[in-house]
């Protein structure tokens, strides 16, 4: 599985991955005689404060997928009452040193990141399959996926 070294940017550590429709959606499109959508390269902020991965709404729009679930979301501004948000099933492709890691289907939340210079957040749902080190002295973050 891939080993990825990330430079720490002013926003934090950014990882480039590709996001596509889930493998199951891809198969359904092929069966319907439709042209599957090529995975889109995105820059995600590695965020240990995010329990779930989050992708920009424009990327979700480009993939042309519908929600397949909902989830209650807690943020600093939601207070005691969580906000219900839609979940979208996507695939993720992570490259680095070693074989590519392919996640065939995972649920993500869609949020507008257009003003933040990133395409979303890589959360602990994906990091739970990795070993990560944060070297603040060298300003390098390394992630090894299992």
């Amino acid at each position, binding site marked *: 599985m891939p080993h990825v070294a990330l430079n720490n940017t002013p926003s934090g550590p950014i990882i480039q991955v590709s996001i596509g429709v889930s493998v199951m959606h891809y198969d359904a499109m092929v069966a319907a005689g439709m042209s599957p959508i090529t995975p889109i390269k995105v820059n995600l902020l590695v965020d240990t404060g*995010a329990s*779930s991965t989050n992708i920009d709404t424009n990327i*979700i729009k480009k993939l042309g997928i519908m929600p397949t*679930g*909902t989830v*209650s*979301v807690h*943020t600093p501004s939601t207070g005691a009452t969580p906000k219900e948000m839609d979940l979208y099933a996507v695939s993720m492709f992570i490259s680095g040193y070693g074989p590519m890691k392919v996640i065939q289907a*995972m649920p993500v939340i869609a*949020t507008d990141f257009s003003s933040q210079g990133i395409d979303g957040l890589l959360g602990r749902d994906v990091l739970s399959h990795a070993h990560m080190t944060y070297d603040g002295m060298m300003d390098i973050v390394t992630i090894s996926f299992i």
Partner: protein
Amino acid sequence: MALEREKDTYKRNMLALMASEGKFAVIFKDDVLGVYDSYEDALKKGYEVAKLEPFLVKKISATDDLVYFSRDLKIECPTSH
């Protein structure tokens, strides 16, 4: 918010589904299509039956699924317009 019909179906069937807590239910319109151990298998069943129409995959739980973010999120629905 999408999938209102499917969420109503989940609520109507929740007592029976609770016997499979922790697994994933697949719901299409008014029908529970099945219960699966993994998210991937549930999604596969959904696409097999519903094709490219909306369907719901829901982890069976007595409480709401919760996710946490240490930053604020701009909340909007990309499929609502």
